[in-house]
């Protein structure tokens, strides 16, 4: 037991003290935020001022409506709706799609509209003229509303940047609304009635407790946790792989085995690295809590509400996944001679983790299906799938506990089996072990 502790202590102290750990711990959240927020912002951001659009209205009726829609944005101020807070950048993977979309809208909502009259010129001539203005960067695009638009005509939108989906969507929406209103007015309905009739509905979705819950936020929270488990299990698995290969390459293994049995040695190593992971998560968790406390007081950022027990489960399922997959990595490390070889050999196992991750897409939609149940009992999938179930539609406690018991029992069994391979593998040098060899080691040792 003392020896196991010595191994745990060494693994922990040596790793936590490294610059890499400090940097990763600080940069981790920054990078994670950067990876989700920055693309969203970049995507939405439209540098270089408002979008200048010329409208050729051949119907003669729609220009003012379309221009108004474009300039005011698609959301007309409504009595029911509280003014939305100024848009905050989406935070983390929990940020809803809606937020990202808004971020997009926010930054490029401004349009400068200009009407072009055909006069006695042909449409082609005007188009040519506008085309050259686009080339000169005089305008960003033009819209042609054909004469039969109110019946079944299709408007045309020519933009310099055809990939700018936000602008395209805005233009499409604006024309759509304008056409619908105009059709109603043409049918004899009063302008005010039309306005009232087109008020959007704001669907309020409620959770178990009856509180308003944000469906999209829940979806992204579940997915985010899945991704997070996936990434950290892989990351720390690699750490274990590296550690094992170091010991094999430097031949420290021989001294270690001459001092202790391989089971406590492997256990100590896994526990040591897991404590490093937990330390890092603890720091991140504390930072997250501090951040949300700060956010709650005055800032407009609203983070999805997560029950504290979910964090406990998160930690437990992370550990379960970590111990299962890291054990595999340790065995792989003992069988190979270089990290690259290790990566290749670990591939099939990593694919299991990937499978678990993809299963979670289905499980998010049907958290209580038979598939979801079995997927969350299978120890190689459970770290991701069960967690996703917990976040979406918490299964009965016995299922969670059963999943944990199966998972940890599997981990212990694997470590036991692995330690036998490990012992032989670590002393073999110079070549990669084959599977039949490994089977023999298990029987022999």
């Amino acid at each position: 037991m003392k020896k196991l502790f010595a191994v745990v202590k060494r693994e922990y102290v040596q790793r936590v003290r490294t610059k890499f750990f400090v940097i990763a711990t600080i940069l981790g959240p920054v990078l994670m935020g950067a990876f989700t927020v920055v693309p969203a912002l970049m995507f939405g951001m439209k540098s270089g001022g408002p979008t200048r659009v010329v409208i050729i209205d051949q119907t003669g009726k729609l220009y003012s409506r379309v221009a108004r829609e474009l300039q005011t944005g698609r959301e007309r101020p409504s009595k029911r709706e509280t003014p939305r807070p100024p848009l905050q950048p989406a935070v983390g993977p929990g940020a809803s799609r809606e937020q990202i979309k808004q971020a997009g809208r926010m930054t490029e909502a401004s349009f400068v509209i200009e009407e072009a009259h055909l006069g006695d010129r042909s449409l082609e001539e005007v188009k040519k003229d506008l085309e050259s203005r686009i080339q000169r960067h005089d305008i960003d695009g033009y819209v042609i509303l054909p004469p039969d638009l109110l019946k079944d005509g299709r408007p045309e939108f020519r933009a310099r940047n055809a990939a700018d989906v936000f602008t395209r969507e805005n233009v499409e929406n604006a024309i759509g609304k304008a056409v619908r209103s105009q059709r109603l007015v043409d049918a004899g309905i009063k302008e005010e009635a039309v306005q009232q009739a087109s008020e959007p509905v704001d669907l309020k979705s409620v959770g178990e407790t009856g509180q308003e819950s944000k469906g999209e936020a829940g979806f992204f929270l579940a997915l985010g946790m899945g991704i997070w488990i996936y990434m950290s299990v892989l990351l720390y698995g690699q750490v274990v792989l590296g550690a094992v290969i170091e010991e094999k390459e430097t031949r420290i293994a021989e001294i270690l085995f001459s001092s202790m049995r391989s089971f406590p040695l492997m256990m100590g190593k896994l526990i040591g690295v897991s404590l490093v992971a937990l330390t890092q998560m603890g720091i991140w968790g504390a930072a997250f809590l501090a951040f949300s406390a700060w956010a709650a007081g005055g800032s407009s950022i609203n983070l999805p509400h997560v029950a504290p027990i979910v964090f406990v489960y998160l930690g437990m399922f992370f550990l379960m996944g970590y111990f299962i997959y890291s054990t595999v990595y340790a065995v792989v490390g003992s069988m190979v001679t270089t990290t690259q070889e290790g990566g290749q050999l670990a591939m099939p196992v990593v694919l299991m983790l990937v499978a678990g991750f993809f299963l979670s897409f289905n499980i998010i939609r049907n958290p209580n299906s038979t598939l979801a149940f079995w997927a969350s009992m299978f120890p190689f999938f459970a770290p991701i799938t069960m967690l996703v179930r917990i976040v979406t539609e918490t299964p009965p406690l016995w299922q969670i506990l059963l999943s944990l018991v199966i998972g940890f029992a599997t981990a212990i069994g694997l470590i036991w089996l692995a330690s036998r391979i490990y012992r032989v593998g670590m002393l073999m040098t110079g070549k990669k072990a084959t599977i039949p060899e490994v089977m023999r080691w298990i029987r022999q040792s």
Partner: protein
Amino acid sequence: MDESKPTLVLNHISKTFGDFTAVSDLSLQVKPGRVFGLIGPNGAGKTTTIRMIVNIMVPDTGSIELLGQRMTNALQDRIGYLPEERGLYKKMKVGEQLRFFAELKDVTGKEADARIDKWLAKLQLSDWKEKRTKELSKGMQQKVQFITSVIHDPDLLILDEPFSGLDPVNVDIMKDTILELRNTNKTIILSTHQMEIAEKLCDDVCMINRSHKVLDGKLREIRRSFSRNAVALQFEGEDGLLNDPELVASMRRVGEDLEVLLVPGGNPQTLLKRLVESGVVISKFELVEPTLHDIFIEKVREVA
């Protein structure tokens, strides 16, 4: 005969890996207060034998007893092991490293610190305690590795090629340390393929070749039993008497020397006396003891 009980006993141990026999029916006894040489060429089975002694591997057949008990994991703490392939954590500081290996051998706390300081001083490494291991020269790393094998004051110390990579000064330090340990009644197994080193340090030797033991016993006795009754000579004058077939079996030139092999039972004293009487000027007269190398070659030829 030596009365003391053997520290280590190997009873007919064998180990095979697939089709390959690494060690075959090896038996030996290692006594305290002596340096036991385990010698043989590379690939003879020395390392496998050692790995079985330190309980990294278990023999397929046969048994190993240490201090009168069958080998167990608990007994591992009574052994100190310097493997041929050195292994240290490159990024750890020397002090921490030693502390870790001491803890692995169940030496902890102040006791461990005291021993670390003592050994670092003894091997002239005190200034390097706070340095990272990778900053040390190869020879220094080797000495650190040596400390890891003695830090827990083991009864049995197994040194696999302890001198490789050391400069002459450090070789002497290492030799002195080994002999000092021997004099405190520790048991030392020295594994090497360098016969000259074994010759200088070992009290007992066991030679293995191709997984088999070919020779085992006290070094002095072995050498005596292999004595070929030869004399190395340098002299000036008439050498006619060397042609006496009753005394000399054969002669050959070895560098400056004339090596004279006497007939079986021939007495070197008789040769010396007759040389003096014949009036030649003798500048060298030396009994040729066979080297371990010679003995080994002879033994291997015999088996083959």
